[in-house]
């Protein structure tokens, strides 16, 4: 076999006796061919960056995606697919309502009140808050766009502005989320929704980095 005698001896003897590593021989030969090409044409070793409009086009395409298919991460894939299905039906009803309908049997909950989620400070996160049903058993849904990027994750809270009390509803994955309001919670006191960015630091308290806020509808 061409190239075999040039490969490091130790690696070769390993390959010879280890059937699981037979592919390594292929890798060694391909790397040698790469070395040969680099000697013939050193210009191959320089990489060039695409012009900025490529990244801009990617962002435009993905922004268009957002209105059709939510970019939910795969650990919530089942939820994401429910949303895709909901989005198809929801062209008429509104997807938040459809979501509620697929999870609740009483048709009375098909009326959702909505309010606006407004970015705070320098942030760009914005969206719509929907409330279906009433306490006990109310369901809060968020439909968010322009989530400010950053490490960690995004969490949704209910806030009592008078006492400073906060209740964590859950993680916002992708652009949409639906949360059961704790049955005993008084929504006339906890009347604000807060969306925050949380670091993976094991601290369950609010990070004090609020991206957006809005009133419970």
């Amino acid at each position, binding site marked *: 076999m061409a*190239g075999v005698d*040039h*490969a*490091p*001896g*130790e*690696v070769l003897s*390993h390959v010879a*006796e*280890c059937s699981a590593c037979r*592919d*390594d021989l*292929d*890798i*060694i030969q*391909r*790397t*040698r*061919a*790469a*070395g040969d*090409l*680099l000697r013939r044409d050193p210009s*191959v*070793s*320089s*990489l*060039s*960056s*695409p*012009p900025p*409009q*490529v*990244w801009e*086009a*990617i962002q435009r*395409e*993905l922004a268009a*995606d957002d209105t059709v298919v939510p*970019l*939910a*991460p*795969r*650990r919530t*894939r089942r939820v994401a697919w429910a949303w895709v299905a909901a989005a198809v039906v929801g062209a008429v009803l509104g997807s938040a309502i459809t979501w509620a309908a697929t999870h609740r049997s009483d048709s009375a909950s098909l009326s959702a009140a909505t309010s606006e989620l407004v970015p705070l400070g320098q942030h760009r996160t914005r969206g719509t808050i929907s409330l279906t049903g009433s306490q006990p058993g109310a369901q809060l849904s968020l439909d968010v766009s322009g*989530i400010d*990027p*950053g*490490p960690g994750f995004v969490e949704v809270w209910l806030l009592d502005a008078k006492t400073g009390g906060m209740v964590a509803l859950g993680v916002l*994955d*992708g652009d949409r989320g639906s949360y059961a309001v704790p049955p005993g919670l008084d929504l006339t006191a906890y009347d604000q929704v807060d969306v925050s960015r949380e670091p993976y630091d094991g601290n369950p308290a609010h990070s004090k980095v609020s991206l957006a806020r809005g009133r419970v509808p």
Partner: protein
Amino acid sequence: MSVRGSGGSPVRHAAEPRPGAEEDSERLLANAFADGESWALEAGYLRWSPLVFTLALRRLGQHADAQDVTQEVFLKAWRGRAGYDPAQRPLPAWLVGIARHAVADRMSSRTRDSRLHERISSVHHELGDSGPADVVTDTLVVVDLLARLEQPRREIVALAFLEGLTHAEVCARTGLPLGTVKSHIRRGLSQLRQHLGASDATP
């Protein structure tokens, strides 16, 4: 000391040196990408768009086509990230796999466009789908990997795999002990395998 595993097969692979900081950060990025964290798309683009763009440009020869392929690769990767398993492949290997296919598709459609080349078209299509990985792409992948390796592994890998020096020759060139050279070569080969992937790897 017995090295016989419970399954009856002896342990042949020596322990590999601890992954470097660069590998840790790549793994973090790959996991975040798979989990759909949008900052990971931006970070992944910054890090690997030159690799994807340059390989498309080298293979296709036209700036506009290479830009289209780069855009297509990152969109496909992001939209299809549910099918990406970071434990199976490094993120750049997955991106390059998608890029190989995007380039092959474009080459075969170019050939299809020309009636004079109908017969070549079918041959090209077969090559694009199942032929050996092309040397230019492999070379760019190796260059990109080498640039991100820390010393002394970068030099050891280049000497052993690109120039084909023996262990003894690498020791003489670098002045490093045999044990160190061996472990870097072993780890370097593993990284080459991960990044080059199988010749006919599908995304």
